[in-house]
């Protein structure tokens, strides 16, 4: 078991290293280095920078040095929490992302809860009452949920809210709380806005989860150990929830860790449509304006989150499933 965890951690570390290189490549991808675009953007605003200043900055950022030195400088900063400067915002990237990442986590977490609390009971019911009306309905809604792009759902919900209540339901806060310091009222206000992104982000996940849960349950429900439990005189309900559900849940436990980061990934577009103060809109803006330190940092953070989530899941699964522990 200990060996298993150590091996997993080592794999995660290697993956994170590879991810950091990839993020750095993304930063380097646009033609020219960021200083040229910086100078260009200053020039477009009418400012000009002297050649000397540019040269000084070039040395300062190490842009005149070989690429691996540049990488080392960048990653050295990242480890200390310095992700470089955002060109567009003119502030350190770190100042921009942490608050928004927290908001993203908030939306993602509530979506995970929403997805799980809805999908598992429905999946179990569908499997135990195969070909019943509710099974058909949930299967169809499941397909529909998978087919509707997140942002479409967001648009439609907003459109309905807008034409029915004349209200703009975007954002996570009402205007009066936008810049207010944290308070209980602000938190309540947040909750009252949270449900739309929660549903929108969670729908596709719910649909997928219902289908997987149903399929897993159908695999388990006719297994001899369920039959044994039935022969033992266990009531149907207790049998289902103690045996097949428990086994069918294992694959989900293996997703619990990265469910969150993947929902944050899915949240990006929704956040743009719903105008949420999360990581999505600034990633998009960063990419569109080639503000690459910002974009690279976000890609790096989201990927690292996913890797850590996977690691967590693996360990959790090993704890819960004796078969894997043996390995």
């Amino acid at each position, binding site marked *: 078991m200990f060996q298993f965890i150590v091996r997993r951690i080592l794999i995660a570390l290697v993956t994170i290293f590879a991810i950091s290189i990839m993020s750095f490549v993304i930063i380097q991808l646009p033609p020219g280095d960021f200083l040229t675009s910086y100078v260009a953007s200053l020039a477009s605003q009418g400012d000009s920078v002297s050649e000397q200043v540019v040269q000084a900055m070039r040395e300062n950022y190490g842009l005149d040095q070989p690429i691996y030195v540049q990488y080392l400088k960048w990653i050295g900063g990242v480890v200390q929490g310095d992700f470089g400067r955002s060109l567009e915002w003119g502030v350190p990237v770190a100042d921009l992302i942490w608050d928004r990442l927290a908001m993203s986590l908030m939306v993602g977490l509530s979506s995970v809860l929403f997805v799980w609390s809805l999908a598992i009971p429905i999946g179990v019911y569908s499997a135990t009452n195969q070909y019943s009306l509710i099974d058909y309905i949930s299967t169809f809604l499941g397909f529909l949920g998978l087919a509707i792009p997140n942002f479409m759902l967001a648009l439609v919900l907003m459109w309905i809210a807008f034409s029915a209540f004349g209200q703009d339901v975007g954002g996570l806060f009402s205007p009066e709380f936008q810049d207010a310091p944290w308070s209980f009222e602000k938190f309540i206000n947040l909750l009252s806005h949270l449900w739309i992104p929660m549903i929108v982000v969670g729908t596709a996940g719910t649909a997928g989860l219902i289908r997987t849960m149903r399929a897993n349950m159908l695999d388990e429900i*006719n*297994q*001899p*150990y369920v*039959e*044994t*439990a*039935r*022969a*033992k*005189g*266990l*009531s*149907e309900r207790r049998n289902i929830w*103690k*045996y097949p559900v*428990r*086994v069918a849940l*294992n694959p989900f436990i293996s997703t619990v860790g990265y469910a969150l980061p993947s929902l944050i990934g899915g949240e990006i577009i929704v956040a743009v449509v719903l105008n949420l103060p999360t990581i999505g809109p600034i990633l998009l803006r960063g990419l569109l304006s080639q503000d690459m330190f910002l974009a690279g940092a976000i890609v790096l953070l989201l990927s690292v989150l996913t890797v850590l989530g996977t690691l967590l899941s693996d360990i959790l699964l090993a704890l*819960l*499933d*004796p*078969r894997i522990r*043996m390995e």
Partner: protein
Amino acid sequence: MSNNNVLLEVKDLKVSFYLTEATVQAVDGVSFTIEAGKTLGIVGESGCGKSVTARAILGMVRKPGKITNGEILYHRAGQAIDIAKLDPEGPEIRSIRWGEIAMIFQEPMTSLSPVHTIGNQMIEAVQLHKSVSKSAAEAVSVDLMRRVGLPYPERLLTAYRHELSGGMRQRVMIAMALTCSPRLLIADEPTTALDVTTQAQILDLMRDLQDEYNMAIMFITHNLGVIAEMADDVIVMYLGKEVEVADVDTVFYGASHPYTQALLRSIPRHDVDVERLETISGSVPDPTAIPAGCAFHPRCRHYVKGACGTPPLVQVSAQHQVRCTRVYEINEHLAAAQTE
């Protein structure tokens, strides 16, 4: 056959499976009785309805299957309960299950939950039927595991199924089946998945336990050798019907149905000298298309066109029934062949 020892009486049991393409008559009018302390063997190829019959006795016929006819009378304290009429999820049948009729399955590997400990599952079985404390239930479990010859039973309580060998798993299942001292143990191919030595050990164990607990066993298998070793009475089934019913000696030395005879010819025996073992020609027909007339006629070496019809169960002697119209002719033919 009617006496006070009768434990279970199955009368004209019919089970149908309603599939989308067709309705399959998995069990088609089977009747038999099981007496206390005796062993009834049911033999047949896969798909002949033997496992469905066993499940019907516990009220556990799976969807889309349904008991469509017949009675399953379980005799207890002078009264008979018709299991076929009980709600399959109700409390009556649940108290009979395991409490009075226990069942072990073919696959000891998958009969145990992969994610619960052996102890958890055994204690559950005890506590479902007896109101005892967890530690008392644990003590019962340890005792039984020792009784079925499992080493270090205390340690097994916290073990998972994948940590045990096939034979150990089946021993655990047997121990679990004994938790409530059942009057009838249904064993559905309990040794099929085991290797031959383990198989012999398990069969020995079951016989010992049968004497000790005075329990009846309904032994389902496709293996005639196992039947010879275990059974008092035998039912040979083919496509949902009994084709031959007799005590074990009659089946092995005076089998009259062509199917039983063919089965016997296909296994090696030390008491009969044969040049080579035979196989039964053809294969079991698709259960959605059971041949009309005698279901066995396409594979039968004694089939005579027009002479067989739809055979009833013929009472050959007091304890011997055969489902064959031409049973007497075949017997004469055999006798003639033997004297030659």
